[in-house]
């Protein structure tokens, strides 16, 4: 019997990850509340199960897709690869049906309820969404799909979700109601969030890249430098923000021109400084690692053939170190997007403002209005920088 068949025959399930995710999604959807209906913004609502929330055709389609995914994880008849390709079609469809179903339910439920009534998403919704997303990631890994194809696929799926937004599918949901209440503030804080991240990453790169090179060139400087940067990293973010308040407000008081620039104990200045301090270690560490990873023989050949030190740096060291340096930037960007949330505590603004406002008012949908876009931002930044890392790899080693 050919080896391929013997291998396929022995196992029932070819893709255990998909199987696990599917079981989790189905169990989660059935056991956990899918949505919650509340009479007003501040009380927690009554749970609604998935089967009750979705219309019959939606339930049927979802059931069908779950069956398809169930077959896709088996060793026969599709097998691992065709199964993964099937999952890449079924999983996003399931995702879109769940999203549409939730919006549709909210619209129907609120049609004859009081204006203050709210519908928000429940745990089953999140479980279903995350399981679908992970199914797609898993399928891509199994198929070793090139990054450009993943990008196109992600754009198509994202396009579907954006289309749902544009069609007003989610307008009845509580989180969107919160959004409509503060539409202008949301846009402003979203921009503030990005600006804070940018203002932290720019200087962190300007300082961190040369420091990383220094750490590579001067082994003696390495110990103290990493010692200090590691120390920054160990300070909890809230503590660091708080620690910066006093010196900065003193500074702002002492130097009025600084105060005019917006430097004071609270607000953007301490937030940016703290973010820079947190960003330095990964940037310096990865820059150092990138340069240290260039083979000594390559460098000996470069200078042995008559390249000047500057030529060696720009033509050989930087191109070869770049992928590792950009991986550091990727870590730092995702980290900064997350940490900026905390910066809202000292009045720096950003999406964290909604989270803390929502926590204060016990308005969980407002919290989500801050949290979900932050997560989306981090995921998108991560993905884009992953593309950059791949592109920066030397053609010979890609």
């Amino acid at each position: 019997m050919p080896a391929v068949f013997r291998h396929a025959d022995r196992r029932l399930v070819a893709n255990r990850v998909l199987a696990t995710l599917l079981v989790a999604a189905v169990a989660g959807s059935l056991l956990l509340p899918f949505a919650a209906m509340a009479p007003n913004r501040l009380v927690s609502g009554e749970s609604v199960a998935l089967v009750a929330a979705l219309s019959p055709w939606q339930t049927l389609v979802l059931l069908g897709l779950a069956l398809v995914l169930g077959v896709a994880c088996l060793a026969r008849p599709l097998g691992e690869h065709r199964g993964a390709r099937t999952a890449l079609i079924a999983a996003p469809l399931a995702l879109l049906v769940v999203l549409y179903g939730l919006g549709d339910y909210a619209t129907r439920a609120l049609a004859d309820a009081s204006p203050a009534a709210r519908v928000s998403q429940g745990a089953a919704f999140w479980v279903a969404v995350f399981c679908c997303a992970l199914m797609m990631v898993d399928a891509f890994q199994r198929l070793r799909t090139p990054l450009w194809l993943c990008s196109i696929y992600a754009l198509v799926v994202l396009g579907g979700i954006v289309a749902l937004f544009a069609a007003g599918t989610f307008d009845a949901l509580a989180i969107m109601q919160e959004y409509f209440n503060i539409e202008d503030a949301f846009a402003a804080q979203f921009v503030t969030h990005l600006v804070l991240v940018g203002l932290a990453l720019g200087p962190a790169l300007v300082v961190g890249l040369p420091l990383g090179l220094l750490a590579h060139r001067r082994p003696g400087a390495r110990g103290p430098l990493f010692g200090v940067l590691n120390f920054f990293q160990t300070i909890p973010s809230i503590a660091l923000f708080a620690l910066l308040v006093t010196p900065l407000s003193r500074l702002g008081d002492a130097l009025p021109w600084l105060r005019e620039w917006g430097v004071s104990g609270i607000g953007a200045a301490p937030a940016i400084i703290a973010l820079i301090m947190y960003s330095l270690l990964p940037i310096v560490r990865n820059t150092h690692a990138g340069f240290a990873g260039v083979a000594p023989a390559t460098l000996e050949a470069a200078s042995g053939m008559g390249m000047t030190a500057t030529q060696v740096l720009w033509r050989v060291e930087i191109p070869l170190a770049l992928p590792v340096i950009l991986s550091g930037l990727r870590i730092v960007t995702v980290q900064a997007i997350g940490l900026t949330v905390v910066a809202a505590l000292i009045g720096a603004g950003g999406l964290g403002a909604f989270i803390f406002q929502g926590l204060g008012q016990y308005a969980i949908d407002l919290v989500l209005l801050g949290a979900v876009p932050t997560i989306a931002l981090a995921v998108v930044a991560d993905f884009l920088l992953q593309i950059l890392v791949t592109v920066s790899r030397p053609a010979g080693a890609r």
Partner: protein
Amino acid sequence: MIELQGLTKTYDDKDVVQDISLRIESGEFGVLIGPSGCGKSTTLRMINRLIPLTRGRILLGDEDISHLKPETLRRRIGYAIQSIGLFPHWTVADNIAVVPRLLKWPKSRIDARIDELLDLFHLAAGEFRDKYPHQLSGGQAQRVGVARALAADPEVLLMDEPFGAVDPLTREVLQNEMRRVHERTRKTIVFVTHDMDEALKLASRIAILNAGRLVQYDRPIELLTQPADAFVSDFIGKADLGLKLLSRRWVNQYQDRARTTPDAASGRPSHYWETDATGRPTCLHGGRLSDGDPEARTAVNDEWIATPGMPMKEALSRMVWYRVMVLPVIDESGRLIGEVSMDGVMGRQP
């Protein structure tokens, strides 16, 4: 021409290269050899100023290299190392073009040069120009490394154990290519190795170093026959000294006239060759083993023949392998022009 005068390198009060003076003439293949850690690489890297010298002088032609900018000097000297150090982010063509580009050659000249060098090393330009280093075998990568060192037609080529990391078979091939390339280009070469057979095969002059000192600098044959001291003779290795010597001797130095008729006059067993109409040897009568049938007739085969330019070591090896006491020596067209025999080898000073 390259000349070292009283060259010394001191690390922490220890002379790792000590007062070395030697001169490698233009077009010569000079080999630095010695045990590991004796200062070969240090010496080589002082020549292209990758390491500053402590005392002494190095002349390139009639210029003192300390008067040149290091980069200018290095662009005039090819450099190939054991670990090759090809640039992994560049194609083979880009790697070879490094120094010509630093020297700002026009593009057309660089392109022509790349093809010429790939051709010199028997690498098909169409196939290899656009390959990346990680797509090459060890032997191919080392060829590209040497091609890159030769790219800007340097006056001198420095090579630091370039074939040390490749398998023995590939090393043999690369050594043969190196010999051919040297014959073709007549570059002045300074070649570092710790392998005596490699040195004997390639060198026109060998410098033996020990603990930072130059022990002997001579042509290979003199090194073998007149070792300066016990260290040199130990280093060369007494075990197969006779064979090493024969590797520097050629068949034409041992060649005798070949008899083509039986020697009827003398009564003792002898051998003679049978040839065809064009003069090629076809059969040997007698001459196999001393105790064999003197009249036995053996067909000449393609392998048990010798050519005048063949190293005597190889001729001897063939005699042993085919169990014959004598080999026909043939010229390029295959005609019998003489013979070499075991008696001949034994009867002459190596």
